[in-house]
């Protein structure tokens, strides 16, 4: 059975290779090859899942050793895959959602002449992502980690002729590189600490190492997670990443890749458990990001950017949960899965809307679309209800658990984190309602674009709606299905471990509070966008609003400090290299030249002056000889 694991990765990898090398002759069928292979991978996943279910809980870990990768003295890196409950969950999510989005893209990218390459990249992404979650050691994980980074770079910048897209892609890759730096340092630390970086030994011996080292490793892993999962302070790339085609945003920047950070933290749970300080930092980052993302989400008029903010915020929830340790791991992953469903659904919905609106993304140009695209409206609506945590839907279960867990951390942190989570819930309700209202309700606000084309909103073709429907179903029922009888908990517990924290307040109270926040959020949104018409041009807005529109100025900070500063540094260095380092050498040469020119003058052509020099020389010679004898 183990041997299937490699096939999980091989299928999409093959697809990528075929599509990218295949050349024009595959243009016609490219999309189907891609979809087929990702689905194949999904099928393999299901087979393995069934197999795992067939086993009893303590023997649900499959290891496949392919070959030794880098053997140097003590440094032994193998290509080994590990399939356990945790990675299985991800495999299903990735291949499942992935295949749906492939299908959706078939419709969405229909008119793009570079479609073949697009599907090649998507397959490449799937392969890398699967490698990431299936790797049995951190170095191999790192390969997947940067692999998805590459895929995301290629896909964000897919429309390269748009400078904005190219820039966004570059930015994403760079910010991720900063995170990757963390991961590589973490791996080095592990190597110096444990002499290896394979999951098994590292995680089992974690407790042997000093807490200081573990904290260091933990923080470095967190840095990596921040980069990949767009957590503060490395979140800046996610908003710009929306330059990519919408399916990409749905798959990579909502459902799967951005959650890799959560996977990393949960996977390294053993290390974090032994490093409480690191855990605390993780929770703080999570809390900050969930508020940050939510606030940003409130201010954006670009539907995709609003959703991106929401993604950031939701992942904040997951990171927060992951930071809580055994109390939260399971719920982090559970929220991750449910979020995968409804956020992918929301993005596909947004894509469908844009599809019908000549790629218009400004929500102020939407309005009243429910009449024109009912399916999109319904699926999007279900996703909406799920994300705000409407009772009974997926989001309700997963988010509620996280809030409970936050309080359960106990102590003042408990209260603070819990409160943040609650507030976040309220804001989520607000901005999602805002999106909903601005897009589907009110009267139509769209106008002809610069070419004078009046957009004709219309429902998207089946190939696009079906995936949306499937995901909608998922976002409705997944949460409930997982929670009833704690199915999900029992499924993951062997890997992540689980402990009920001692919550200062009962679960019921938390749920109540959440409901209250939910109502407040929706209420305010309704008052602001439901009652009175939405202005076609954004009002100046409060200071906070304006800050939020500019990603709370965090981007401007980067621009001023890093970009400008960097430019100045490099420019001055170029100058230094030319004038100083080079100058010294050229200067020496010139110096000799000048000296030569001066000495040359002595050769003035007069025989008598030559005689003088000879005479002087003779005198010197004599004097020196005598002197030598004297001393």
């Amino acid at each position, binding site marked *: 059975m183990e041997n299937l694991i490699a096939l999980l990765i091989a299928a999409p990898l093959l697809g990528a290779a075929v599509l*990218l090398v295949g050349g024009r002759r595959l243009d016609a069928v490219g999309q189907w090859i891609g979809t087929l292979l990702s689905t194949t991978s999904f099928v393999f996943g299901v087979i393995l899942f069934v197999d795992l279910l067939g086993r009893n809980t303590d023997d649900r870990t499959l290891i496949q050793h392919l*070959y*030794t*990768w*880098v*053997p*140097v*003295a*003590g*440094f032994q890196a193998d290509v080994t895959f590990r399939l356990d409950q945790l990675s299985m969950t991800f495999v299903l999510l990735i291949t499942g959602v992935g295949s749906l989005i492939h299908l959706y893209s078939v419709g969405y990218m229909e008119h793009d002449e570079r479609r073949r390459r697009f599907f090649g990249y998507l397959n490449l992404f799937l392969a890398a992502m699967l490698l990431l979650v299936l790797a049995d050691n951190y*170095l191999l994980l*790192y*390969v997947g*980690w*940067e*692999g998805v980074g*590459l895929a995301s*770079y290629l896909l964000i*910048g897919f429309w*390269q*002729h748009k*400078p904005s*897209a*190219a*820039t966004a892609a*570059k930015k994403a*890759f*760079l910010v991720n*590189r*900063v995170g*990757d*730096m963390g991961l*590589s*340092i973490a*791996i*080095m*630390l592990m*190597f*110096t*600490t*444990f*002499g*290896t970086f394979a999951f098994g030994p590292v995680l089992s*011996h974690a407790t*042997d*190492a*000093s807490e200081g*080292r573990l904290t260091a490793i933990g923080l470095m892993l967190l840095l990596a997670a921040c980069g990949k999962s767009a957590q503060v302070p490395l979140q800046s790339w996610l908003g710009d990443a929306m330059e990519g085609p919408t399916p990409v945003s749905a798959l990579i920047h909502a459902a799967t890749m951005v959650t890799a950070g959560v996977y990393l933290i949960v996977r390294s749970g053993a290390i974090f458990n032994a490093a409480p300080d690191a855990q605390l930092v993780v929770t703080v980052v999570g809390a900050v990001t969930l508020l940050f993302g939510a606030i940003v989400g409130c201010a954006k008029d670009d539907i995709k950017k609003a959703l991106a903010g929401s993604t950031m915020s939701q992942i904040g929830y997951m990171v927060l949960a992951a930071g809580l340790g055994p109390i939260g791991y399971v719920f982090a992953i559970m929220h991750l899965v449910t979020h995968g469903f409804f956020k992918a659904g929301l993005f596909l919905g947004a894509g469908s809307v844009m599809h019908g609106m000549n790629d218009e993304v400004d929500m102020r140009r939407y309005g009243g679309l429910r009449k024109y695209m009912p399916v999109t409206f319904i699926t999007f609506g279900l996703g909406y209800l799920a994300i705000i945590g409407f009772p009974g839907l997926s989001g309700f279960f997963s988010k509620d658990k996280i809030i409970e867990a936050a309080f359960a951390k106990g102590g003042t942190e408990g209260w603070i984190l819990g409160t943040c989570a609650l507030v976040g819930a309220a804001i989520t309700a607000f901005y999602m309602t805002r999106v909903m209202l601005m897009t589907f309700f009110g009267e139509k606000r769209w106008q002809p674009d610069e070419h004078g084309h009046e957009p004709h909103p219309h429902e998207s073709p089946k190939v696009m709606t079906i995936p949306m429907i499937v995901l909608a179903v998922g976002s409705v029922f997944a949460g409930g299905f997982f929670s009833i009888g704690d199915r999900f908990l029992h499924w993951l517990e062997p890997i992540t471990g689980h402990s009920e924290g001692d919550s200062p307040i009962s679960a019921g109270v938390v749920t109540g509070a959440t409901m209250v926040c939910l109502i407040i959020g929706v209420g305010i949104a309704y008052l602001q966008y439901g009652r009175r018409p939405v202005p076609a041009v954004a009002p100046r807005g409060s200071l906070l609003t304006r800050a939020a529109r500019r990603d709370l100025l965090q981007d401007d900070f980067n621009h001023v400090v890093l970009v400008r500063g*960097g430019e100045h*540094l*490099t*420019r001055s*260095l*170029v100058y230094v*290299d030319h004038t100083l*380092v*080079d100058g010294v*050498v050229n200067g020496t*040469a010139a110096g000799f030249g000048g000296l030569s020119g001066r000495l040359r003058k002595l050769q003035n052509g007069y025989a008598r002056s030559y005689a003088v020099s000879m005479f002087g020389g003779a005198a010197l010679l004599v004097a020196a000889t005598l002197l030598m004898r004297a001393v």
Partner: protein
Amino acid sequence: MSFPLLTATAVLPAVGAVATAAVPAARRTAAKWLALLVSLATLVLAIVVMVRFDPGGARYQLTESHAWIADFGVRYELGVDGIAVVLIALTALLMPFIILAGWNDADPLETGSKRWRPTQGFFALILAVEAMVVISFEATDVFLFYIFFEAMLIPMYFLIGGFGDRAHAQGEEAASTQRSYAAVKFLLYNLVGGLIMLAAVIGLYTVAGNFSLAEIAQARANGTLHMATSTERWLFLGFFFAFAVKAPLWPLHTWLPNAMQESTAPVAVLITAVVDKVGTFAMLRFCLQLFPEASKWATPTILVLALISIIYGALLAVGQRDIKRLVAYASISHFGFIILGIFAMTSQGQSGATLYMVNHGISTAALMLVAGFLISRRGSRLIADYGGVQKVAPVLAGTFLIGGLATLSLPGLAPFVSEFLVLVGTFTRYPAIGIIATFGIVLAALYTLVLYQRTMTGPVKPAVSAMPDLKARELLVVTPLIVLLIFLGVYPKPLTDIVNPAVKQTMSDVHKTDPKPAVEAAK
């Protein structure tokens, strides 16, 4: 007396060089084919060497030894260890691609320009360089090594100064002056380095009485040859200076950008991917082996310099306007990594450094040659003159991107393995340096992606709108390199297996052992 395989590997290209030069001027194409065939034959020999080499066997294998200049205590001694084997293989491997890529670079200019580019000479010189590089990898006699280490400057010098790019932004005159400036700079830097090394070589003789690497190392090991600490340090510095110029290490690097900028892409590859490797290789073989104590004494300084090279080179690469200059500074940064790995004095570091030499050779070749194809199409080296190429020449852009990704050592491509090994190797002994060096990977991403974005993406510049995509010959050059990059990235074991024993030896030369993991140390 078995067949002198190593000599043959070096002599074949030398003979080929003479033969190529002898081809009558009219038969230009014949000369090209001859050169190509010779380089391929040499590649075959190099592969035979690789096969015949037994990683588990003696330190130096396939050895040859003949009397040469007894008065100077010089013998003609050849022998290869794992490190030399892979580097010879790299050299022999790159040559056919260099020749193929430079196929038309030395054709007479159809335009009315007065410039003179003897085709035969171009290929003859390339082969001559190959011969000298190969033999300096093989030499186990310090003097023999030194002779070719120096002599190879001459053909390189003519290659740089004699054959620039076809077209040039500032026109013929400026071009020729800049070219000869670059050539002279290259020669003088390396010559000064070499002469200072000459002093050290003489010093070594006065101390040791012969030049045989094995004998000296032996004598040092068993104490029969004692070196005063100060003597050893001076000699070490003398040797290291020459290698540091060649490598090049900050602040002795400024010749490289000029040289690579002014020479044609294949020659630039020859410089940075092949010739410069002799410097780093010599650090491993001569500095560490002959002067272990001094090496350890100098390590902190060298590590800092290497660190500066990494960061400084990367930052300057970011600031460049000229594609070739950018690649040159990137190489400076990479050489920083190599030297870092060598002097970290850990198995991972040194194996990594050796792999790095190979991988950097291949990746730079890929990037630079594609860049060369790009430049030859537009006739300008300035990044600003390009834009949107990806739209008109997707294959070119794709290969360029892969080359770039290799340069920023993306996991899955060969350079990643070596770079990570170097970093780990450094980190295990000098955590702080290891961490700072890691910033290099971010900067690498920066300059590569900026280069790609500015040249390949965005709206199509009118000047490139008619740019043709890669031709068959060019694909023939690039594809194997890319395949190799991927293969060595996924499965570097064949190389590491050859390299590891040699590194083990070097480690024992300097009496160093890898640091133990903290957990084990605690127990």
